[in-house]
């Protein structure tokens, strides 16, 4: 049924115009901005296929993979505290750090396997050695590191096989820094704009974040008198994490925007506040005037803040990356700019 007829005098009862404009829905998607968000730069003009994302977003579950990043950092840096505590005669610190490393790396392995589509095929990761795959190298790293942490913790708790325990502690400390930082390469070696564009600075962010988490665990659980190194590590780690993150965001261009919007934004703000606050509290707790229960309470709250801050950072980074893959803007605009500048330099 149509509403119009063709007569000798022309069209009668014709519809005044098309309701839907052809092609009007292509191109830029209009989105409402949430409260409290301000545009740092004007919205870039770009074309897209009905606003559909170009990339397929990561299928990783946030709790599994962000948790895996967090626990890997906690374990890796804890192994350093464990070795340091053992060498400098701080058995309480060493024990907490060893147990923390073994527990965290076991949980992170469990998270990794849980996230696999076919968990029973986990060992397929070890059927080849492939340096172009950070996940393959990471699997080899974890396969060597996790048994060392477990051996170190078991020897410490049992109080036997001291030499084996010391060797395992040393081995874990040697691999620990790599365990804490390789996860940054794992994220950066993808086409996800907000991860890939940070490939220079993210390892340093993760190194700092791992250090604050390990320091936090030690502050919360180790005997207060032995936590001096943990307090200093908290301050150093917080400095590295916050500094490298600011540098990363400044250098990434448009890909930094997902870190400033929505859920990742408040997660990363909380991470900043908790990490900086934890580091300040840790320093305050270590002042000579504080002893006994008050100092322990301060140290425990500093530790909890640092642990929470490190976790919030990993979740924020994870979600920002997913957000950058979901919006074609972050894929198209930088690539288009690259093409334009290349064409311009070719033209000169």
């Amino acid at each position: 049924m149509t509403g119009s007829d063709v007569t000798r005098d022309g069209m009668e009862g014709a519809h005044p115009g098309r309701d839907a404009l052809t092609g009007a829905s292509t191109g830029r998607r209009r989105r409402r901005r949430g409260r409290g968000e301000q545009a740092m730069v004007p919205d870039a003009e770009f074309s897209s296929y009905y606003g559909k994302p170009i990339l397929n977003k990561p299928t990783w579950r946030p709790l599994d993979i962000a948790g895996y990043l967090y626990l890997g950092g906690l374990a890796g840096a804890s192994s350093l505290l464990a070795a340091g505590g053992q060498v400098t005669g701080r058995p309480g610190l060493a024990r907490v750090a060893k147990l923390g490393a073994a527990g965290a790396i076991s949980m992170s392995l469990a998270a990794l396997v849980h996230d696999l589509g076919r968990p029973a095929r986990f060992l397929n990761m070890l059927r080849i050695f492939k340096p172009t795959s950070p996940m393959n190298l990471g699997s080899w790293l974890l396969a060597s590191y996790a048994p060392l942490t477990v051996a170190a913790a078991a020897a410490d708790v049992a109080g036997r096989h001291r030499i084996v325990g010391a060797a395992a502690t040393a081995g874990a400390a040697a691999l620990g820094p790599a365990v804490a930082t390789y996860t940054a390469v794992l994220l950066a070696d993808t086409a996800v704009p907000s991860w890939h564009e940070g490939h220079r600075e993210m390892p340093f962010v993760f190194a700092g974040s791992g250090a604050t988490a390990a320091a936090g665990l030690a502050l919360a659980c180790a005997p207060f008198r032995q936590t001096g190194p943990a307090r200093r590590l908290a301050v150093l780690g917080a400095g590295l994490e916050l500094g490298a993150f600011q540098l990363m965001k400044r250098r990434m261009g448009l890909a930094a925007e997902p870190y400033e919007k929505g859920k990742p934004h408040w997660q990363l703000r909380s991470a900043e506040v908790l990490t900086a606050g934890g580091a300040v509290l840790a320093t305050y707790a270590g002042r000579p005037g504080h002893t006994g229960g008050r100092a322990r309470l301060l140290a425990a709250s500093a530790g909890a803040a640092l642990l929470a801050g490190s976790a919030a950072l990993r979740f924020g980074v994870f979600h920002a990356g997913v957000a950058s893959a979901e919006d074609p803007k972050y894929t198209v605009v930088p690539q288009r700019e690259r093409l334009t500048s290349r064409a311009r330099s070719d033209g000169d």
Partner: protein
Amino acid sequence: MTDDTDASAATPGRSEDPVRGSALFGPQPDVAGEAGYTDAPARVGFFTDTSVCIGCKACEVACKEWNAIPEDGLELTGMSYDNTQGLGASTWRHVAFIEQRKPLGGQEPGVGHEDIDVFAAAGNLGTSPSSPGPGATAPEPGSAPAGAPAGEISPVAPDGRTELRWLMSSDVCKHCTHAGCLDVCPTGSLFRTEFGTVVVQEDICNGCGYCVPACPYGVIDQRRGDGRAWKCTLCYDRLGVGMEPACAKACPTDSIQFGPLDELRERAAARVAQLHAAGVTDARLYGEDPQDGVGGDGAFFLLLDEPEVYGLPPDPVVTTRDLPAMWRHAAAAAASLAAMAVLSFVRRPR
């Protein structure tokens, strides 16, 4: 067997040879040889000429049928005639459908028919040679129909709207020269075939999902409920017995052309020149250049607009190009973490 080829393909840090390129980036004329094959057949691929695509989706159907791919969602998008939306684990061919308020190159838009008396024209049917009767199939050569609006062609329709055009394009895995998915696969499930294509071995894949964000084109994905990653195999099983892939076989307009990559590139260059000569200045090739960020695609396209209009990245770069730099920075970061720990312990205990 495949382990060896994977490992050799994966060796980074090979010196950058201007002719052969490196293992991670740059032109690579012999992908199969680089992957460890000797006496490999010529590299094959697709040339998808979107200027003749009619959006029939026979390729989508043929692909699903041949590869026994499960259903991928039965939703109506409302955005266009495209309800497939994009490539994924269960969608290995995707016909994009774009409706634009823009004339096709060489098209004469806005031809007005308002002043034609259709009843008079109907009365003349069969009486003049320019209006043949119902039995005739074509007008006399060289004779304009009576009342044709000669000289009234304008770029804008009478009500001020520009005309519209439909662009259709059948998207597929690009089978990159430097494939991000293949580089990052931790199990060796993804491998380079002797034909230079990239294929997932489903009996190896453990569903880690790393290939999904590594693909700069958003092609490969993890299948829900199955857990493993899936994508176009360029019909590896058919290639093995000398048959062309199902989509190319089914394409009724030869928009999807299959063949040795060198031959396809020549054919594509000729087609672009032909279209430019015909006034379709929008025509351009996408993904055929071995100098691009992925070393050239095994499946490349002739497009009639910017790539992003079709949902393709304008300048994709394989993520592993920067992998050596990433490992260097991670090593430096690991060293600074160790240094911070040492620094924390240097003071004597209180």
